[in-house]
């Protein structure tokens, strides 16, 4: 039993990621690269040199100009897509929980990658250490993806920023990060992703009761990750300040992502996939 329904799978299999960057990979695939290769996509002309394949010699130009000229073509390679899901305890919040919503998004995004012929590698952010799974290719790997998604639990021990800064070395690719981003150091940690040559596409998942909390009275708020506590008296003024802080945090996060050339999508937990596709993925141009 998959998270995606058959109709959703039929709709989403036609989608392709459209990264702003081009990435080269050792394995041939369906994505054109900047490198010259053997695809059918014409790239340029250049003078013949010894050893060139005569099949690419442009005889017409040789006959007209008497100078041997070689036609070059773009290379095609597979797109490395990294699907990172935040499994820190803060994701276990709301109804449905943010993690449940993240699992649904992860399966959908992973399916797009598999259906598009991209190389998909999954990893749980927050786990210690962060260990990418083996690459998946083709629709045939969807069930493996599904198994990985459903196996995710909110048992991370590392904060988001710490996990991101300690990502293992990976070939540059499109990094799809699904997280609530609720770490004051998150914006700084995102720079390390860009520094590694990845293109970042972050989906920020927030619970509706996180956006508009319904708290009242004298409370002791306990951080689900660090266990730190804050005593508050929840009333209109307190809630007003909280909302202002949340908006400011999200604004800083979005600004950091934009500066890195990435894209940030906000998806409230429980948002239908259709909405996520229309108002999220398509709007920011992450898929076509």
């Amino acid at each position: 039993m998959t998270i995606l329904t058959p109709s959703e799978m039929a709709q989403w299999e036609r989608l392709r990621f459209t990264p702003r960057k081009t990435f080269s990979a050792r394995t041939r695939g369906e994505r054109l690269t900047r490198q010259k290769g053997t695809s059918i996509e014409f790239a340029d002309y250049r003078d013949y040199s010894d050893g060139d394949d005569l099949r690419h010699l442009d005889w017409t130009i040789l006959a007209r100009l008497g100078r041997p000229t070689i036609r070059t073509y773009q290379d095609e390679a597979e797109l490395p897509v990294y699907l990172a899901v935040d499994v820190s305890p803060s994701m276990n919040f709301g109804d449905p929980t943010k993690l449940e919503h993240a699992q649904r998004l992860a399966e959908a995004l992973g399916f797009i990658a598999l259906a598009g012929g991209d190389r998909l590698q999954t990893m749980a952010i927050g786990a210690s250490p962060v260990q990418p799974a083996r690459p998946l290719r083709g629709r045939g790997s969807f069930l493996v993806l599904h198994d990985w998604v459903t196996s995710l639990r909110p048992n991370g021990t590392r904060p988001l920023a710490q996990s991101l800064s300690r990502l293992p070395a990976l070939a540059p690719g499109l990094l799809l990060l699904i997280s609530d981003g609720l770490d004051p150091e998150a914006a700084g940690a995102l720079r390390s992703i860009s520094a590694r040559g990845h293109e970042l596409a972050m989906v920020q998942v927030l619970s509706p009761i996180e956006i508009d909390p319904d708290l009242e009275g004298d409370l002791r708020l306990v951080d689900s990750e660090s266990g730190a506590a804050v005593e508050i008296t929840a009333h209109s003024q307190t809630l007003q300040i909280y909302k202002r802080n949340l908006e400011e945090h999200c604004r800083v996060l979005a600004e950091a992502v934009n500066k890195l050339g990435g894209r940030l999508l906000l998806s409230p937990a429980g948002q239908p996939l259709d909405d996520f596709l229309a108002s999220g993925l398509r709007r920011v141009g992450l898929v076509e």
Partner: protein
Amino acid sequence: MEFQSSAMLWWLLPTAGVIILLYLLKMRRRDVRVPAVFLWPKLTADVRANAPIQKLRISLLLILQLLVVALVVFGLANPLLRERGLRGKTTVLILDASASMSATDVRPTRFEEARRQIETVISSLGTGDRCALIEAGANTRAIFPLTADKARMRAALIRLRPTDAPNDMGEALRLAAALVGQDSGARIVVFSDGSFPAVTNFSPGKADLIFEKIGTSSRNLAVTAMDVGASPDGSFQLFVGIHNYDSHPMATTATFQVDGQVADSRSLTVPAGQTLGQTLRIPGTARKADIQLTTPGDILPADDHATIFLQGAGTVHALLVSSGDLFLERALALEPSISLDRAPVVPETELAGTSGAGSYDLVIFDGVPAQAVKAPAVWSFGWVGTQFPVTVSGLSTHPSVIAWKREDPLLRYASLQNILIEKATKVQAQPEGRVLAEGTDGPLIVTSDHAGRRALFVGWSLLDSDFPLRPAFPIFVDNALHWLTDSGSSAASVGLNVHAGQPFNMTAPSLGSPLTLTMPDGETQSLDTSTGVATVREADRTGLYVVSGPGLRKEVAVNLLNETESDVQPRLTLDLSGHAVAAHSSMLTLSETWRPLVLLALAILALEWWIFVRRS
């Protein structure tokens, strides 16, 4: 401020300490797990305390709660404030309503100021306090008895009016002492300027006596005397005494009127504390004379004017020769046209056979042997003299009145039925004598009107009978005076001159005929003539009263002419039976203030609760 229970203030320490201790307790908050706490502001407001100690943080609620506790403890200590008014379980107020209280040195008048102060006293009465009010005016009367009903007090107080009459403060004080003299802690408060004669035969008993002085000035110029005498040429000589009660000379304009026409106007300056006498010759045909003083700054108008009727007024001089008979003296005093002198024996100059004319129109022998006198009219009770139309034949014991002439002017409306007489002089009437009352042993009342002399013989001494206690007695005396002096009641007579507050009688033309009294302010009042004689007791304002009825119209000039009342200088002490009572400048009493404190505490408690709910 004083505290009735100052020891209660010690409770402030433990109660405030408990509250502060509660604030030292830390709040036990509900744990809520959240994704991240860094977004939440550390905004707390401690409104509950139920966990172990924490550092004391000053909050608005703490301040309000301490304030409430302080107010409640202060209320329990019963703070007492000094304020105007009277406090006490039982208080009798005496309001001086005499003429001097109409002085205007205290605006609008001393009487109104006294009324205002009494209103203050009534307002300051606490729950269960009782108060009575006695008016010391022309008549002494209890306005309301001891009561705690403030509405009743105020309703009665507002109806009071000042008078132009002197008062009997002694009677008012004795009445007050009778009400509360046995109550220790009770108060008798006199609201007065002290312008009344020294009080005798008074003791406040266990009650405290307070004199609330009203008035500030003594600036008054008054007509204190007014009389008229006949001159040999047939004219009248009017005498007026004008007294200055102030400590500075006062200038005035005295305007004399005769029969309503201005006869003279004089500018006078009266030295401080002196009396200036003024005379005026008036034609013998004149009927009435007036004097009006116009004095800048004068504070008492009631004694600035006086009126005198020239005929029948002050012309009857009577001498009462008596060893002392209160009943007769009282009855004679009711007749305003009589100028009465008293003596134990007849003065030598008044005896018949001595040189010179007599000074009296009437000599009354009461219980003393009658002597021959020069006066044209004589009246004797029990003793026979040569001037009476009877001869003594012995002594009668326990005689009964068996017949009397009811229609005679002397006995009209005066019933002699069932009079108890212990002993009487047994007499026989002489030929000129006219027997008016016949007893079982002979004539009891005999008159004669012979050779211009009138004599009235009553066969028993007043104190040997119950006649003075009978309603007929004052009527008989009034009839006798009119008959003996041929004055008073006829319709043709001019008018009466009385002092303010002095009652006067008016004989009705016929029994039960309606008589109406018109007062100086124009108000009218029907008089009771069921006994044939109407007694007016309400002539307590100066001015001209008119008694009118079928065939009768009689004017009565009511004047103050009272030196005690005109002396408006506020007294600093009262002489009450030899005890000096100093005046209070103000009535400072201790009043309880715990009620507003408790109300304020409740209000603050409500505010504290509102803030608490709003924050919760």
